[in-house]
């Protein structure tokens, strides 16, 4: 049905044309779900945009043929292309929050789209809209579609978006990261729906994603891309199960498995990020030296955190919103504590409480046996400011973009009075950069000159330069590609075993947490569902919620049936 041959997309820039996609080929049959995987910058979304004719200006299709059924997509003029979009090809975007108009009722958005493509009465269009939403699994659709998008939950919104994409009976739907913004439970519902539509309606899907688990779960065929080029394609089980191309093999090796803990990830060789073979012995000696590095534990005793709720009356105080409720756990010295939970479970609030950015309303924390005050009660000079360091989720905002790497790294050194003298600080920073696998030239560059993975390494280096005993990692890999994630996890494991760091590792990704954690806490809506040794919780979960989370996470079958 869809046939793409030697597609080349170029973007003119002031340095000449940049080739974003080169010599791409793929076919999608009716009812087929075709996965398009690749790391960031691989050109996945550009392929989708080229097919639907919405390439971001000034990009253009330089070469190749795009054929949908009998229609040559490249031969269409603007008007014909406009009619074809929505009618024969639809698109589902990543974030259902932004792809629906917040000021229009769901019904009006559906009816508007149906009427734009078909000459039927408003009544008929409304009937169609109700049927569609019910098909998407929204109960009582006639009443629910009178709501505005913000009144829908995330999963319902994505269903409405899919209904919107389907309401003109398209032959092909391009889904660009349709489940990336959703929690696992909702993700699995949306994936089931997509599978159902492909089977029943015979719609072809092009599923663009970086999540190999998702592809493994629902795609029939898969295309692997890298740097705008096609690497490997074929049936999913064959490409992912017995990858032929070395890049695909490396990629598969870097995906953390959910069903077992592996000691180290095989690291792809030419992944961007790793730039040096020197080990940074000086930094290692410095971290180990000084006072003996005893590992330090952390305990939380009955911590409750509340925020001001939304005001419902001008007379009464608003009810507080409880973000964390009676949280108690013990982090053993030198161990890795994994904290998992879906969005809104209070994971990040927990990190902020530990670092003193948020004040608990009740409960106590101790650091290595001494009391750890929370919130503003923790002074700027409290020793824990140095002992607890944090690696943040977003490497693009956790480094000050106007400072050079050298200045960013040296900050903890003079702030805590660890090293005297400009030049000795600089030497140590250089050593630390090699320890985290960065080239020494990095010290005079600015953060924007590095990729996400490299920035996250710099963030780890900054945290280590405070000589911490506890390192809090809040979703440190969720913004990174799998191969870079594998490298960073290796780095954290090495550092942990070398320096006896106590790590608190927060993530929504169960597979990643399993690779890191010794103990685990499962959070939901601010309260602990289950806690215990990590392997025990993963192998024999006791809480229903943990079981549900584990069963819904997309995994790769251990043995592919070929």
């Amino acid at each position, binding site marked *: 049905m869809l046939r793409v041959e030697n597609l080349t997309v170029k973007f003119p820039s002031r340095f000449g044309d940049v080739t974003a996609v080169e010599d791409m080929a793929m076919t999608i049959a009716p009812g087929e779900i075709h996965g398009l995987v690749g790391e960031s910058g691989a050109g996945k979304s550009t392929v989708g945009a080229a097919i639907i004719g919405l390439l971001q200006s000034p990009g253009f299709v330089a070469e190749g043929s795009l054929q949908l059924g009998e229609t040559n997509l490249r031969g269409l003029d603007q008007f014909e292309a406009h009619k074809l979009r929505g009618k024969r090809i639809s698109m589902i975007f990543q974030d259902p929050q932004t792809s629906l108009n917040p000021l229009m009722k769901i019904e009006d958005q559906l009816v508007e789209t149906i009427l734009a493509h078909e000459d039927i009465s408003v009544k008929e269009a409304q009937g169609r809209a109700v049927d569609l939403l019910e098909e998407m699994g929204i109960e009582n659709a006639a009443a629910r579609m009178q709501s505005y998008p913000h009144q829908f939950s995330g999963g319902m919104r994505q269903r409405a978006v899919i209904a919107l994409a389907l309401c003109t009976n398209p032959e092909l739907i391009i889904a660009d990261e349709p489940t990336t913004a959703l929690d696992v439970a909702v993700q699995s519902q949306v994936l089931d729906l997509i599978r159902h539509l492909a089977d029943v309606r015979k719609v072809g899907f092009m599923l663009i994603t970086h999540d190999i688990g998702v592809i493994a779960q629902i795609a029939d065929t898969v295309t692997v891309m890298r740097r705008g080029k096609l690497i490997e394609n074929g049936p999913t089980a064959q490409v992912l199960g017995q990858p032929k191309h070395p890049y695909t093999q490396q990629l598969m090796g870097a995906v953390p498995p959910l069903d077992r803990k592996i000691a180290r990830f095989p690291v792809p060789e030419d992944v961007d990020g790793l730039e040096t073979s020197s080990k940074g012995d000086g930094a290692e000696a410095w971290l180990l030296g000084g006072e003996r590095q005893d590992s330090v534990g952390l305990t939380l005793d009955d911590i409750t955190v509340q925020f001001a709720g939304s005001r419902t009356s001008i007379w009464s105080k608003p009810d507080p919103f409880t973000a964390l409720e009676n949280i108690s756990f013990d982090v053993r010295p030198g161990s890795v504590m994994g904290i998992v939970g879906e969005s809104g479970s209070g994971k990040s609030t927990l990190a902020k409480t530990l670092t003193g950015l948020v004040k608990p309303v009740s409960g106590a924390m101790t650091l290595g046996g001494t009391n750890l005050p929370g919130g503003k009660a923790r*002074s700027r000079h409290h020793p824990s400011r140095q002992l607890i360091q944090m690696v943040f989720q977003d490497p693009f*905002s*956790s480094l000050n973009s106007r400072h050079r790497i050298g200045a960013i790294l040296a900050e903890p050194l003079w702030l805590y009075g660890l090293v005297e003298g400009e030049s000795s600080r600089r030497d140590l920073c250089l050593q630390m950069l090699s320890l985290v696998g960065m080239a020494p030239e990095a010290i005079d560059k600015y953060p924007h000159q590095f990729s996400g993975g490299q920035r996250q390494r710099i963030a780890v280096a900054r945290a280590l330069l*405070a000589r911490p005993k506890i390192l809090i990692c809040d979703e440190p890999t969720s913004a990174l590609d799998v191969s870079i994630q594998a490298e960073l996890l290796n780095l954290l494991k090495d550092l942990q075993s070398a320096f006896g760091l106590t790590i608190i590792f927060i993530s929504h990704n169960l597979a990643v947490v399993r690779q890191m954690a010794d103990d685990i806490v499962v959070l939901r809506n601010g309260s602990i569902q289950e806690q215990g040794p990590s392997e025990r919780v993963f192998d024999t979960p006791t809480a229903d919620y943990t079981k549900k989370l584990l069963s819904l996470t997309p995994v790769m079958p251990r043995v592919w049936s070929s």
Partner: protein
Amino acid sequence: MLDFIKRHEGLWLFSRSPAVIIAAIVAVIIILGAVLAPWIAPVNPYDLASFSLMDGLLPPMWEEFGTEKFPLGTDDQGRDMISSILYGARLSLIIGIAAMAIATVLGVGLGLAAGYYGGRFDAVAMRIADIQLALPAILTALLIDGIARGILPPDMQQNLRVTVLTIAIALSLWVNFARTARASTFVQMNKEYVQAAVMQGQHPLRVMFVHILPNILGPLLVIMTVDLASAILLEATLSFLGIGLPADSPSLGTLIRIGMQFLLSGEWWILWIPTLFLVALVVSINILGDFLRDVFNPRLR
């Protein structure tokens, strides 16, 4: 050269927008003229001995009765127009830049602190800003002028006119800076690099000025250029209304006020030439400000 231009986004955009290039040339010529006025102006208009009433009301040199001695004509006192304009632009620019600098320091400082601390401090600072907004600049200027006249001995008043005017203009401009700095700081406060600095226990002043300030400079630079134009206009308005500079040390606004009296008696150049000059200066600064905004805000491109 071409490679160098291509490597710098701003220069590249600059080289492709003719309006901006013209504005930049006009602004540079006017500013150079103002800076070099003591050396290039034919006479010193502040020196009463250098002109004579006999030369009064001469038209520009291309008109009938015009002479080459006074290329743009003279005013009723016999003052050379081009010299007056160059010196006037000099005064206007000094007052404008000084007022803008004071407003920047005051507004950015308050805005940063309001955004950083939030809560009560923020509420109080922003209410003061609201009150300031409700007072027209002219009223502020009159108020300060009045106070200065009241408390200063008469012989100091004359020397202080420029200072009073500058402070009055600065006071009516700082609110823009405070609001922008506060809003941008709020955005930065949610960024993880700020949280990292706070978490490490860095001094609040360091977080504000070393970490946050460099990241909000973009919008502030834009406001600085736009407000420079406003400051110059405000000075012209105040001088035109007679609250500003006296006739013996004319700024552009004072020249326009003097010219007003001759508008209907045929001596058009006394009004029109300084007015055109002021318009050219303000418009070109505004175009440059718009251009800077585009450079700093990729979404508007």
